[in-house]
């Protein structure tokens, strides 16, 4: 088998996090290679290195030269990657709607004659790429007239147009129906018969098992399975590899939750306009309830519906025993003392171009203000207090949040809710993109909050994190709770039960 791409011991670090830690990927001609891993495992970073967007800090990338010998190459930019025969279809669409199919396919290298666009050559070239996919599409049709599935195929044709030998597909079926996905994978199989190597990134394990023949699993930036035949693994084994069975569990001081205490937050058979149904949960003061599920299971959406960003269409939410109608986050905060630490801290949690002081105090200005005015000094005192309590390393409270490392940023997005004195906290994926040591500190912090009586709903797709922190684990699958388990902190037993819920929506209640 000819190796067409070999990435060896790639290292890529960002401030505060090692996104890739000697990750390895080997591709052979004619293979369909699945690249798997949970969020934050390093898949996107690896793909960005292969497509010339990022440069690795260590390791090397080797591609076959004209004589077929592998040679180390540097991909300085996406054009380099394209010239080296690596085509990519990103999750987001990258087509120009007003341009024709042919123009989009050949966008990077439009054929020219005497400085003008050579329409005939353009059409021939586009036709050739479409034929590779056995796709019967009019090359002159504007892309805006195509269906989602057709767009996806045009993207692939575009990726192949530069004589690519390697094709990277990042979640190609995310917006396709099952039939359309089947058709797409038929095309992928045909391409592999013709010798193309395909890398498939997908969260849908069913599809991966149906299409791919080899697999690399990334976890915490490392390859925990390297180009192994997929047939050697069961689905459970793959999930175990992804979530990390061998994870070294941190043992936190045990907490006791009084069983007879009235729950701080209750969801009673809640359905939402986002599509949730039959969601029942209760979180007592001092308790951490985990909400586990794979990406897309509807966990963050549930948090947002709870905060009024989507409507609760039936069922009841009760806070401290009283029925609650929460219209927006301000309502949740000021009337019900519920806080929400968002999943994407850069996009939703922080104001990157504002000072840490403002980022922390934004939720408490209402309390700090006298006659509508906020004194800088009271704000500064507050920030220093929480920087101390959470161990946020600051040069000054006037430092901009964008200048902090990922871990410190996450602490700031938590600090604003602690400052607001919430007694229910929904924490969404607290440790994504955070290195292992900071992660452990975070776990202690969250456990400490619960020990002081806070009711915490922890959303996470990091199973070891769940087993470490949660008192109970509710499993969500396709916008419904499919089971709830008491956590005995035995990772092997818990992960098996949880994974069973994920796979068939039923399991043994431990």
């Amino acid at each position, binding site marked *: 088998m000819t190796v067409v791409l070999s990435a060896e011991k790639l290292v890529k670090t960002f401030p505060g996090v090692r996104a890739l830690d000697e990750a390895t990927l080997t591709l052979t001609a004619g293979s369909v290679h699945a690249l798997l891993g949970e969020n934050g495992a390093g898949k996107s970073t690896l793909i960005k290195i292969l497509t010339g967007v990022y440069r690795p800090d260590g390791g090397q990338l080797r591609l076959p030269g004209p004589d077929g010998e592998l040679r180390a190459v540097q991909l300085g930019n996406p054009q380099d990657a394209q010239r080296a025969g690596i085509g990519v279809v990103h999750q987001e669409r990258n087509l120009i709607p007003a341009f024709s199919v042919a123009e989009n396919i050949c966008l990077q290298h439009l054929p020219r004659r005497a400085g003008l666009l050579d329409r005939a050559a353009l059409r021939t070239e586009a036709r050739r790429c479409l034929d590779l996919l056995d796709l019967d599409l009019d090359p002159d049709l504007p892309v805006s007239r195509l269906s989602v599935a057709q767009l996806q195929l045009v993207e692939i044709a575009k990726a192949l147009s530069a004589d690519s030998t390697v094709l990277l597909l990042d979640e190609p079926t995310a917006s396709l129906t099952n039939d359309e996905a089947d058709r797409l994978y038929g095309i992928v199989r045909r391409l592999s018969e013709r010798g193309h190597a395909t890398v498939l990134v997908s969260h849908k394990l069913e599809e991966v098992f149906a299409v791919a023949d080899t697999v690399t699993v990334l976890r915490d930036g490392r390859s925990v399975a390297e180009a192994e035949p997929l047939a050697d693994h069961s689905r459970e084994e793959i999930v175990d590899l992804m979530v990390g069975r061998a994870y070294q569990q941190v043992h936190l001081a045990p907490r006791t939750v009084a069983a007879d205490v009235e729950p701080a937050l209750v969801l009673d058979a809640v359905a939402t306009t986002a599509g949730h149904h039959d969601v029942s949960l209760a979180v007592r003061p001092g308790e951490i309830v985990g909400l586990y599920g794979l990406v897309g299971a509807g966990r963050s959406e549930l948090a947002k519906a709870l905060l009024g960003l989507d409507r609760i269409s039936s069922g009841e939410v009760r806070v401290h025993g009283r029925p609650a109608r929460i219209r927006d986050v301000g309502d949740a905060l000021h009337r019900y003392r519920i806080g929400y630490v968002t999943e994407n801290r850069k996009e939703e949690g922080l104001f990157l171009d504002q000072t840490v002081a403002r980022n922390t105090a934004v939720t408490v200005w209402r309390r700090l203000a006298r006659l509508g005015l906020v004194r800088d000094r009271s704000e500064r005192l507050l920030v220093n207090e929480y920087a101390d309590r959470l161990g946020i390393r600051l040069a000054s409270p006037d430092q901009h949040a964008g200048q902090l490392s990922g871990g410190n940023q996450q602490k700031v997005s938590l600090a604003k809710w602690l400052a607001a004195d919430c007694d229910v906290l929904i924490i969404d994926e607290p440790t*994504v993109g955070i290195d292992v040591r900071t992660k452990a500190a975070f776990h202690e912090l969250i456990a400490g909050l619960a020990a002081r009586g806070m009711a915490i709903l922890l959303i996470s797709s990091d199973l070891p994190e769940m087993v470490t922190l949660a008192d109970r684990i509710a499993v969500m699958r396709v916008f419904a709770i499919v089971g709830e388990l008491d956590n005995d902190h035995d990772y092997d037993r818990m992960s098996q039960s949880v994974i069973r819920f994920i796979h068939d929506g039923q399991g043994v209640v431990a």
Partner: protein
Amino acid sequence: MKTETAPEAPAVPPAAEPRPSARALPVWANPRLGLLIVIAVLVVLFSSLTPAFLDPRLTLAPLQADISVYVVVGLAQLAVLSLGHMNMAVGRMAALSTFAMGLAYDRLGVPLLVGLLVGLAVGAGIGALAGLLIAKTGVNSFVVTLALDFGLLGLVTILYTWATGGVSFAVQPSGLSALRFDTFADYCMGEVCGPRIPLVVPIAVAAALGVGVLFRHARLGREILMTGSNTVAAELSGIPTHRRVVAAHALSGLLAALAGFLLAANNGAFSANIGESFLLPSFLAPVLGGTLLAGGAVSVLGTALGATLTQVIYKGLNLLQFSLEELKLYIGLVLLAALSLDRLRALLAERRAVSSS
């Protein structure tokens, strides 16, 4: 790069992570200081070319009155730039508000202050309407206010024709001519008279101080800035972002009305052409002063200096007897040069900050 799902690792490459604006910049890179120096150089230049530039009564007093108007015009735009929005109707909001003032003086004979308050209320109301349209529909502020401007252009003409049969009210409320002609030098206590500063100046200063305190210390102003910095994060931090958008646009309308009043006082008439010259200066003053079009940060002092610079250039060229067309050409060129220099200064400062970090 923009990911809907959770980004793996930081989605932003590390080199781009700390925004340049976040670094500690060298003193000379402060845009306010740069403006002050340019203003000083120009004043020296103009006064050496034409001594009339330093005539207190003929030049300096009217110059201060003009600066007062355009500082407030700049603040009206700054109020929405804080959100990353624009108000293309700033001039016509002023026109409609001054019409309301003129009507109140003409038909109801109200005192100067009451008419002013009526006009400010109309300005704030029309601004709030713009804000409401933007917040509820999600349509870009540029488009909404541009359409509003067009509509108001017609409305103001129709209203003046209906109320006055022409383009101007004849009424002169008592106190208006004092605002127009007097300086503090005209008011003496015994032997001690005030400085030769027109009476409109403290009004503009008060407006600037008010807006400054609002954005620096008030919860409302800070929440507007946070909304401009990151609307999603603001909403998820419990800020009622829609109401903040409405408030910022209402403030913009209110300040436009105040600018309209000051211009009417300077001109001595409430007329339909008030606000015609507001749009470009409204952007120039804050932008020259270092306020970003992206939102999240404003500089009131910079806006005041930016407005001063534009008016100094205008007055200087005027005294050097440039024709109106030439005046426009040179002002355009000078401002283009000033903005390019400003950009150059920012780039140099950024480079120095990078190399020293």
